[in-house]
């Protein structure tokens, strides 16, 4: 069986949706954050596949950008979540509701 562009795209779409679902459903900040990374990687997969399909490298350059940015984001994000955990001793989102209405 040939692996065509569609397959890649479906996989990436599924990954994206899974990530999105995770963001909405999961209660733990870290898991939510991992789901977000999953969404980014879904995009990466799509980009790489498209890049190959289109025959130009722009997409792959973009992937490098994304990976770099994601790394930075993870660094900052994790630090933030850790700081929050230190203060609250919890990483559950439902505890984060002091700012409202």
């Amino acid at each position, binding site marked *: 069986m040939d692996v065509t562009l569609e397959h890649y795209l479906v996989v990436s779409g599924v990954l994206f949706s899974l990530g999105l679902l995770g*963001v909405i*459903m999961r209660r733990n900040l870290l898991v939510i954050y991992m789901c977000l990374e999953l969404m980014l990687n879904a995009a990466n997969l799509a980009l790489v596949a498209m890049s190959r399909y289109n025959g130009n490298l722009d997409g792959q350059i973009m992937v490098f950008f994304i990976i770099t940015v994601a790394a930075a984001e993870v660094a900052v994000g994790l630090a933030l979540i850790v700081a929050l955990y230190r203060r609250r001793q919890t990483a559950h989102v439902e505890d984060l*509701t002091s700012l*409202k*209405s």
Partner: protein
Amino acid sequence: MVELLAWLVLFLPLLSVAAITIFTRGNAARSGAISITAVVFSFICGLVLFYALPESSMGMPIQIPWLSIHDQGLGLDLHVDIGLRLDHLSLPMILIVTGVGSLIHIYSWGYMKGDPGFARYFACLSLFTFSMLGIVLADNFLMMFIFWELVGVSSYLLIGFWYERPSAADACKKAFLTNRVGDFGFLVGILLTWATLGSLNFRDLETRLNVHSVEFSAVATAVGLLIFCGAMGKSAQFPLHVWLPDAMEGPTPVSALIHAATMVAAGVYMLCRVFFLLNVDGSQALQVIAWIGGITALMAALIAVQQNDIKRILAYSTLSQLGYMVMAVGCSGPVPAMYHLTTHAFFKALLFLGAGSVIYGLHHEQNIWAMGGVRRKMPITFWTFTFGTLALCGVPPLSGFYSKDSILAQAIKDHHYGLFVLGVVVALLTTFYMFRLFYVVFKGRPRTEAAEHAHESPSVMLWPLFILAIFSIAGGLLGIESLYARHFEAAVAGTEPGFWDRLLEPFNEQLLAASFGVLAVVFGWLWARSLYRNKAVDPLPEKLGWWSQLLRNKFYIDEFYENVLIPCTQDALARVADFIDRWIIGTFAVRGTANVTDVAGRLLRMLQTGSLQMYAFLLVAGVAGVLYWVLGK
């Protein structure tokens, strides 16, 4: 020169108002002097005009344009002058206003002595004179309306002169408002006339009426009745008569001047002034006018029979006489109307001033049953009052006889036989209630302390009585009627009638009317004499029963207005409007909108729970919605 004099006649009183308000408010004597001087000079100017004005310059325009807009779109011209019209109608009227006015000004000097509002009183009196002269001299409708209103307000100020008395305060309000109701009709009538004929000037209207007679005849009845509304208010005709008796709350000289001699005559004067508009083919207005006048005359005379306040009796008598005049106009007789207006001004002013003198002498006692025997205490007042009474009753050869007779004759001439009978009945009633007054007040013996110690008034008050008495006696023999006739009936040929001719004219001309008039007087007098001679209480209520009650309460018309008509119409509307405004617009619409907005805000804010996942969910839902909307189709 003529123009200057005419302007002086009009504006001297206004100058005195200005002078008093600006400079001499605090100084009673000076204010009074200014006012009296102004009106006397005005009288003198009027006299000069009356005698010196050549026939050729009668009715020439003396005008200052006041407002002038030419509207091509409407094809109408709104042109209003402050213009004076000097003719045989206005000149005698000026003399009445300023002449009687002068006397009353002088009388007031004595009557109002010591009142804290002396300066204000004279300012208002001058304002009134100015406004009244304005009506008389006006050469167009709008100017007449302007002064009409000013007369209303000066009357308001004078009736409410003792404004701290609730009754006076209410009376002046009532007077003004009732007048305003009439003015409403008047103004609408003016608008209608203007829109139909395209002018406001009386002379122009007269000429245009000949050209546009067809257009006008379509609206003639409406115009006539609307304009008559104005007269109805000012001349206190039924059903707008209710203010006049209440207006007696003002000082008595005011009652004499305004509510007897001049202002209330303004309505009649106005009807005569615009008689050409009423007397057109196809107009039913005159019929209505005649009957309203007749009804007023009868009703007022009936009410007067059972009144006990000296001024109120005179007030109802005024109403009744005004009814006469209006009836005369309605019987196409402006000349008799004006004639009666003139003589009535003399004897009614005389009667009021006499009554004022009595009131003054009895320390402001007005109930006739608390008087009695005043004749001996106040002889001069008594004699002048007597002549006034005789004149009013129409005893030949006093002035009242001639004028009243000319009205009765006119009714016959115009084939208003019903009105003629009515007029005779009224004449009988007039004699009856006047002699009732006469016997109760002057004859018999004093019934109270005040009457016991009554004293004659000072001479400044008596001189006006003398002069007015002379005119009341001789008014019928001065040729007043032919004077007015010159205005209405173009060029009366023939020579001036001699003295004897005049004396006997009524019997020569319309024997029926004259003899019925005289008979009415005789029977009225006998009736009154038999009932009231030397009586201490009124015998009539027993005889009449509930009729007396009805008459005493003026047919309950005031009560009907106050408790039924006004609350059910305008006040009810006001209540509804207020309700709508307060609750439907103010609360429901305005506050409601505000509250809905506020609640929407509070509801929306509930979305902001602070929960991250809630937000994320809403985000995804929103995005999904947008995607579906844009791409799903």
